[in-house]
């Protein structure tokens, strides 16, 4: 287009460029409706979590959090995340590398498989493991005989969480690496680098922001997963309860403050995730855009 520097057609500043923007009245009304919708459906639920958590005061809030079962729920949640997120990162990197850097038959099939957990109800994600390892399954008796506990124990929870969260990192990395192409890697190889060096010094810096986003989302989901974990966990207090499950238990016992107190921790995590994501986009937006396609 001609004159890129001068011809900035910004409808906001150019009052009379009424060609391509709505009348002021229409704009105000549309914004009002949009904001009202967001306030009711997004903001209010968030606010009420914290309001209910502190409804009986700060002291009561911390009492609940210090409760033994709550502490073990927190510990379990952190443990599960600490195992599943790195596993999924490794998978995400491997899958993205294979898909983005090579041309091979069946690629579309692979990508569809990776998207699978998104289309599957979390309950079904847990169900499949019950069918696989449960008492009535083929493996069930064998496991029992050898004293291996998968269901209603930590391994089962980890498995279900891995199932539900593994697309996050891969989905973030695959389009990113596809856009970046193989140019940089081929250049590194021609200069004598081997595969690992190429990956470490060339690929990794290029994808670091996408990787970070993927990890943030994967982690948020891993800590917050409810349906799948609920099915496999057995709800044994103090042992196989993650934080979301603990929230359910407290709520069903009419311990509103308790439930919301634990919920507020998770909500806080969600907010931190969003804030981090936004801050990263703001400060490194240019860098991110630069690594996207070059």
């Amino acid at each position, binding site marked *: 287009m001609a004159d890129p520097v001068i011809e900035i057609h910004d409808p906001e500043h150019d009052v009379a460029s009424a060609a391509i923007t709505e009348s002021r009245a229409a704009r105000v009304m549309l914004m009002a409706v949009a904001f009202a919708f967001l306030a009711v459906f997004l903001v209010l639920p968030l606010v009420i979590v914290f309001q209910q958590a502190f409804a009986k005061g700060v002291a009561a809030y911390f009492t609940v959090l210090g409760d033994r079962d709550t502490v073990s729920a927190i510990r379990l949640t952190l443990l599960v995340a600490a195992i599943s997120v790195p596993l999924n990162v490794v998978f995400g990197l491997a899958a993205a590398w294979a898909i983005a850097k090579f041309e091979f038959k069946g690629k579309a099939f692979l990508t569809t498989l990776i998207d699978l957990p998104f289309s599957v109800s979390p309950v079904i994600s847990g169900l499949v493991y019950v069918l696989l390892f449960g008492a009535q399954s083929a493996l069930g008796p064998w496991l029992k005989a050898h004293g291996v506990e998968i269901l209603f124990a930590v391994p089962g929870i980890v498995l279900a969480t891995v199932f539900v969260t593994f697309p996050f990192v891969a989905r973030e990395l695959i389009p990113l690496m596809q856009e970046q192409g193989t140019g940089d890697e081929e250049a590194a*190889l021609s200069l004598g680098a081997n595969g690992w060096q190429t990956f470490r010094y060339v690929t990794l810096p290029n994808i670091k922001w996408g990787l970070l986003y993927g990890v943030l989302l994967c982690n948020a989901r891993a800590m917050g997963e409810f349906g799948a974990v609920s099915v496999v966990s057995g709800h044994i207090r103090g042992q196989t309860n993650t934080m979301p499950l603990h929230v359910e238990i407290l709520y069903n016992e009419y311990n509103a403050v308790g439930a919301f107190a634990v919920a507020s921790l998770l909500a806080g995590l969600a907010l931190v995730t969003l804030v981090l994501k936004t801050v990263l986009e703001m400060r490194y937006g240019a860098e991110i855009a630069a690594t996207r396609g070059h």
Partner: protein
Amino acid sequence: MTAAPVQAGWRFKQPSVVPGFGLTLGFSLVYLTLIILIPLSGLAWRSAALGWADFWRIVSDPRTVRALQVSFGTALVAALVNVAFGTLVAWVLVRYRFPGRRIVDAMVDLPFALPTAVAGIALTTLYAPNGWLGRPLMALGIKVAYTPLGIVMALVFIGLPFVVRTVEPIIEEIDKEVEEAAATLGASRFQTITRVLFPGLAPAIVTGFALAFARGVGEYGSVIFIAGNLPKISEIAPLLIVIRLEEFNYPAATAIAAVMLALAFLMLLVINLLQSWSRRRYG
């Protein structure tokens, strides 16, 4: 690496100097097989083992049918609501400048980041008869909590980002020249939006709808608190699966899950076909 002569014929993979194909593909496939394929085939095998007669009996049980209806019906309504408001939100976020735009934009991702159980109890408390929103609605004679309407509210929360995030990039890509062309040809702002811009957004809106719908059908954590879970009234299919599991009625759980999966795949297929048709026609 020597440059081997290229051979004609069927090849699985195009030759490339980049290393690591075997390792990465191998690892990915093993991972996928262990985590997804084996468990899913377990499900498929189990439901096949049921035999048609039993399968049909379970699936046509009135409680099952109602549960599926509730799940799909509420998801449909919620997805439609999200299409309307989600498109509006996407438009406002992309086209208008206002203070705090970045914050609002980040907030749209909240349902992605917030655990479903937290959303569930928060929404229930909000819409309960004595809740902040529940009370004024009760005064108007509208009961939300413990009814299918409550399920819809929860699913609207869950599905919103799907529509907004799918439509936003398309709105960003709108060619300003096309809008200007329509104006020079005499179209009013309304005519431009409805006749010229909207057809371009339709595929993205449909995709967003499908994603929100698929997510809503399978949603569990945010729904079971607010639904009331009354069988045949506000009981969703995933909950019925859990109930059957707790009854150790594995066949029933399996059958219902199989039906849900089949319908979800069908939807994805339709969406993919729609998208490639649109791409071929309109470029």
